[in-house]
């Protein structure tokens, strides 16, 4: 069994003519929490969708647990996804189901467990995210942080080997953010999972992640442990880590000369 659970090799992806990612090489070791960071719009979520097989690379390969995702049949892709939990940015809870039923969906769909066992399993997962008391609430009654925690319980209810988080901290207050961070780490370590966190929240990820990649300018511009990244002197990495307004990633979107635009 390979040490790496995920491996992206020489991967290029484009939307039509527009190249989003070019020649990406990335690997995720089993049992680790890996952060994929970078400015908005550089293709971080695209990486997540490539790993889950929702997108197919133009060139290169995506391997999960030694199997090439991009060449999988529809049936095998769905089989692989049963072993992956994904927390989407807004939680994506089913609005017509209450909290209990939302968490129970994967269990009902993929197992034939008796109702009593499903109930226990769901309640254990909700207890882990601190929301056992909210089983009867509808998604519209939850705050953003609570919805994210319910979604986390749903994503991990079948104890997947791999958890993928897409911007798990976006829009959360400090309490909500630190709760989610703790849950990511605890879930990963307690269940012996592997976690990939897509984010642009630098400080939080430098605390949480075992290893991090920084994506910018269509490729990986830096990688390493948080300590190694802090020592890096690449201006693209420094701009991102320090949150500088202007730099290799320009403040202004490309435009014509301002004088000709304003003064004719």
């Amino acid at each position, binding site marked *: 069994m390979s040490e790496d659970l995920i491996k992206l090799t020489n991967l290029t992806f484009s939307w039509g003519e527009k190249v989003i990612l070019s020649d990406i090489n990335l690997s995720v070791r089993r049992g680790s929490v890996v952060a994929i960071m970078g400015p908005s719009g550089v293709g971080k979520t695209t990486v997540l969708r490539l790993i889950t097989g929702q997108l197919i690379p133009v060139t290169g390969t995506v391997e999960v647990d030694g199997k090439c995702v991009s060449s999988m049949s529809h049936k095998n892709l769905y089989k692989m996804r049963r072993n992956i939990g994904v927390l989407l940015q807004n939680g994506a809870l089913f609005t017509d189901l209450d909290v209990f039923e939302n968490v129970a969906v994967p269990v009902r769909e*993929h197992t034939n467990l008796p109702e009593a066992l499903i109930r226990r399993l769901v309640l254990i997962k909700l207890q882990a995210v601190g929301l056992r008391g909210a089983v009867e609430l509808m998604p519209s009654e939850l705050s953003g942080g609570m919805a994210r925690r319910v979604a986390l319980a749903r994503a991990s209810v079948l104890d997947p080997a791999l958890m993928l988080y897409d911007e798990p901290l976006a829009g959360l207050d400090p309490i909500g953010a630190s709760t989610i961070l703790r849950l990511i780490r605890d879930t990963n370590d307690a269940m012996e999972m592997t976690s990939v966190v897509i984010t642009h929240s630098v400080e939080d990820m430098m605390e949480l992640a075992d290893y991090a990649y920084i994506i910018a300018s269509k490729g990986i511009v830096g990688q390493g442990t948080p300590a190694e990244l802090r020592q890096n002197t690449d201006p693209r990495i420094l701009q991102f880590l320090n949150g500088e307004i202007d730099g290799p990633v320009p403040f202004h979107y490309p435009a014509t000369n301002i004088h000709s635009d304003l003064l004719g």
Partner: protein
Amino acid sequence: MTAPNSTMQPLLKPLAMLGRSLLFFVQILGSSKLGLRQLRAILDQLYFIGARSLVIIMICGFFVGMVLTLQSYVELSKFGATDSVGAVLALSLFRELGPVLTALLFSGRAGTSIAAEIGLMKATEQLSAMELMAIDPVQRVVVPRFIAGVISLPLLAILFNLLALAGGATYALYIMGIDSGVFWGNMVASVEFQSDFMMSFWKSVAFGVITSFIAVFSGYFTTPTGDGIGRATTQTVVVSAVAVLIVDFLITALMTWN
């Protein structure tokens, strides 16, 4: 590969849309596995789509019957043929108005609701979340709504016809004072089960397939934004209305060929 000729360009988008519709229709048929879970989902949708359309169908049916009787009575009285009001009412309802008006009302009430619901699920990434949980969104979301629509529309059309007959009879018997024996007798003598009642039934089945498919298609392939959902609901009503009227003509022409 060379770029398509500019004269061909306007044809490409509708052709691509047609191809996508056919593939989606095949996908829906392929995903229609009637397990216990899907049957339960279909029953839920029968309630939301069918049962919740009952009130609008019944009210509209009753008043359509009344106005049809009133208009027929005014014209037929010029020829001294008011005895035929019942026959005219039944024939117009069974052959055309019943299935067509039910389909138009259905697409406005249930079709828009289906398109908006699926569109919103797409915009809030619920469909994407299903795919990521290895749950086929077509099987789970689209198929129950499509099948429930196909089952609901013929039943609603039958109810519409019954209420329209009741409305027409109320007006003819109690307001116009037409003899009930003449009214019902002429109606029964004029309506044939195979050519009239069954035509109504088969038309409503065809309209059920068309309006339900347009609703799920519009919702599933909408741009996942507020504007996109708005366009999907409008498209559902407009395309359904046009398609229903075209198919109505084709079925009528086919069934009255001889």
